[in-house]
């Protein structure tokens, strides 16, 4: 690992650690717990349960094996679904969207580690690029951050469905899942399935210049995902109008979809203070 990267990791660590300690410490616990924070019950032993989790007292009393589910389900698993598709490689306001995604992911990871929760990461584009299984410990967190930073951006497309399918296959237990993306892509019914299975919330990262484009005359823009180029006349009022209308419609559709499925969602703009937005998200979750 080179010097720069180390510095970056440290910086993110310091920044996000402070944030997570002061502000987010355990917040998503209360926000997303749903169950398992306190011992609630014992249940009958099923085939495949660990023997050591058997509550011998209860078993002796009922003459039938029971297991304590208290211990296992107390700790949460936080899963970060991180969009590394080509479209995140854009940003005009101080940082790229992918950088903001990295930072938010780091903040969430440190927050999780504060609570001794497991953190796992799925990098996806139109396929699952990398999977880091949920684990505990700051070494693991640093690894995740390292991966986040070093992950080589490729000009790939976005396909949410493959990521969801993979996640549904790999993660059997209910977890707290954050989808961090720019929202440029298609969602299908796999979103609904995932939502039912997990505590699901979405953080959408956008750049200001994805809503409007500045007047630069004739410009040639390159689609990171499709690898295609197009010439546009950015001085053309009619074009700009059509563009903003298109974006507005796109965002509205997205929002509607999320709301219908009861998914908490926030939109963060690059260069904006994402902490406030995150707090907002957790408060939303708390209300639910």
């Amino acid at each position, binding site marked *: 690992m080179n010097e720069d990267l180390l510095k970056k990791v440290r910086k993110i660590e310091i920044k996000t650690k402070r944030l997570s300690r002061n502000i987010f410490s355990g917040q998503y616990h209360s926000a997303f717990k749903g169950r398992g924070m306190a011992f609630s019950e014992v249940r009958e032993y099923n085939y495949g349960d660990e023997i050591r989790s058997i509550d011998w007292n209860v078993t002796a009393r009922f003459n039938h094996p029971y297991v304590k589910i208290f211990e296992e389900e107390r700790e949460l698993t936080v899963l970060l679904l991180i969009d590394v598709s080509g479209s995140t490689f854009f940003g005009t306001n101080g940082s790229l969207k992918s950088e903001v995604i990295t930072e938010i992911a780091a903040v969430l990871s440190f927050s999780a580690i504060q609570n001794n929760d497991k953190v796992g990461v799925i990098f996806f584009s139109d396929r699952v690029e990398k999977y880091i299984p949920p684990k505990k410990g700051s070494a693991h967190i640093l690894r995740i951050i390292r991966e986040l930073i070093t992950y080589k951006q490729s000009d790939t497309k976005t396909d949410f469905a493959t990521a969801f399918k993979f996640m549904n296959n790999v993660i059997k237990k209910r977890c707290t899942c954050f989808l961090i993306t720019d929202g440029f892509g298609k969602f299908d019914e796999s979103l609904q399935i995932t939502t039912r299975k997990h505590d699901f919330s979405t953080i959408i990262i956008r750049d200001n210049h994805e809503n409007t484009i500045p007047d630069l005359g*004739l410009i040639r823009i*390159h689609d990171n995902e499709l690898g295609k180029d197009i010439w*546009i006349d950015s001085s053309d009022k009619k074009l700009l109008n059509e*563009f903003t209308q298109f974006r507005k419609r796109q965002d509205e559709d997205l929002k509607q979809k999320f709301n219908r499925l009861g998914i908490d969602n926030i939109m963060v703009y690059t260069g904006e203070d994402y902490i406030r937005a995150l707090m907002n998200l957790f408060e939303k979750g708390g209300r639910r």
Partner: protein
Amino acid sequence: MKERRMKMFSGFEYPYFLFLLILIPLLALYQYFFEKTAYPTIRYSQISPFENTHKSLKIRLRNLPNYIRYLAIALLIIAIARPQSYLSRDEKNIEGVDIVIALDISGSMLAQDFKPNRLEAAKKVATNFMQERHNDNIGLVVFAGEAFTQCPLTTDHPMLMELTSKVESGIIQDGTAIGDGLATAINRIKDTKTKSKTIILLTDGVNNMGAIDPLTSSEIAKDYKIRVYTIGIGKIGMAPYPFQTPFGTQYQNVEVKIDEPLLKDISKATGGKYFRSTDENSLKTIFKEIDNMEKSIIDVSYYQIKKDLAFGFLVAALLLLIIEVLLKKTILRTNP
């Protein structure tokens, strides 16, 4: 004879430079691929919102500066090939033949065995002859009892024809001085620089006047290398001759007397030919025959004053390049 013609365009000095025009499609191809691969672009997250949106005029005209540049380059290449127009000057030095027609205008030429009479018929045929040989110097000498020059050697044929039409019998003393007529004609023709000199002598009688013997004249003609074609005019036999009487002009049939041996001698001595014309048609044929025999040598020298047209192309190319740069820097400015 000089002829000046200004041609607009006549060719290239270095036409092989035009092969450079192949460069233009190559350049266009290069430009196309460069723009596709190496041209700087702005990376953006999503272009789908821009597809199928309004296309402004600027977008449509985006490649205009390129086209203008290709055109400018084409013009430059054409300028390198040096298109030229030439001010061409054909100097046709036509070695014409000098011809003096010696025409007998004695009273007997009014005889009406030719229609309307011999003189008019001869004039008509001579005029036709003059009209056809417009590259030659032609002169006209008339003789009767004396000889004088009606028209010196000239290429101004309209004037010559006018002067010919004014010829009338009776303007000089009557008689037939063949020797004098021939001598006058020789005098007119001898000093010209033309190689081919010809006298056409028309008469209808016998030499009966004059200071110079016809044979002497033919000797002189021979010395000057002048060909003499002699034409005897008159029907064989009797012909109606006019006679002036107190009661007006009367016609009387008189036997036609032509000194044919003399005329034959003259023509023979000078390398010409004797003809006998008995009516208008035969006269025409005779002149045609002479016309064929006296073919003029045409020597054409050709000058070209070349003028380069490249400058105009250069200026046009320069203007186009300026327009291209202006368009590129202002209206059709591209970023980055």
